[in-house]
């Protein structure tokens, strides 16, 4: 049971903030990451557990750094 595909808890996703800037995060479903545009970091989610460690986060590439507009059509 422990290694079945486990989705991250949606209630948790809603409340999480960036551990560095405390700004809200954007969940990116295709890469399964939580994006902090302010910190320029993408935090991974592994086995349904958000890994909110700076040391584990992926620095955003230049093209990823623009924060999508709130009214942009979802892909």
């Amino acid at each position: 049971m422990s290694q079945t595909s486990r989705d991250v808890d949606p209630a948790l996703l809603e409340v999480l903030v960036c551990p560095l800037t405390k700004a809200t995060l954007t969940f990116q479903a295709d890469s399964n990451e939580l994006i902090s545009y302010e910190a320029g970091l993408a935090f991974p989610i592994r086995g349904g557990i958000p890994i909110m460690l700076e040391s584990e986060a992926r620095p955003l590439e230049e093209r990823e750094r623009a924060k999508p507009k709130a009214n942009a059509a979802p892909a």
Partner: protein
Amino acid sequence: MPEPSSTDQGHAQNNSAPHADQTTTHFGFQDVPLEDKADMVQDVFTSVARSYDRMNDVMSFGVHRLWKAHFINCIKPHAGERFLDVAGGTGDIAFALGRAAEQDARRRRLPIGSRADVTVCDLTPSMLVEGQARAQRLPNPYPQYETHYSWLCGTATGLALPDRSFDCYTISFGLRNVDEPQKALNEAYRVLKPGGRFFCLEFSQVVLPGFDRLYDAYSFNVIPRMGQAVAGDRESYQYLVESIRKFAKQGELEDMMRQAGFEHVSHTNLSGGIAAIHTGRRL
């Protein structure tokens, strides 16, 4: 995962090594660069995750269970409260909080759905995976009040949680392992709602004369050997013993809590000060 190589040498001798500057912190009896401590602590807990609860039983002759039960009694969890358990590892405190909140809901015959919410935050993913698996096997006597658990990996000094969002913050045998405890206390204060309560259960300083020497002898001679025998891991348990001696004493921890902004700060010694419960409130 390699064993932490950090405790290879001179652990018991350099007790008084001074802090040269602010960029080092304690790792057991060694001073290590601040940025390394989180990784080193993570190595320790990755290596003990599976045997952690069993080892605690062996080391403390089961007394840690009594301390934890007392801790929950002090907290008196209520239905509908939001709890954050930091360094919550495999979830034993979280499950006890959840169960107590469910019992509270049942006792007060609250409406269906009056449930508590417990967020567990830990530095070590393997501890959380173990906790998550345990949550699925929990007995569920009051499904109408079933506690909601969530699991998140992070540091106590940089919580990925919003300001003023929890009724109760707990940290049990965790603050000692944090690289900057003052920062962790500041974060605890930040995420608590006004009126929110802080509870810390941690090893502390033995206050009974004579007992302290016996306790030292047991800690340094017996516990690392038990670690070897039960968990096959002497170094990690050597670290645990050293880190206990290095941690803030009762009064020092109270001062740090006040520094973070807490009021009504107090502590209760357990087993002659082997452990202590510190409490405070955000007003």
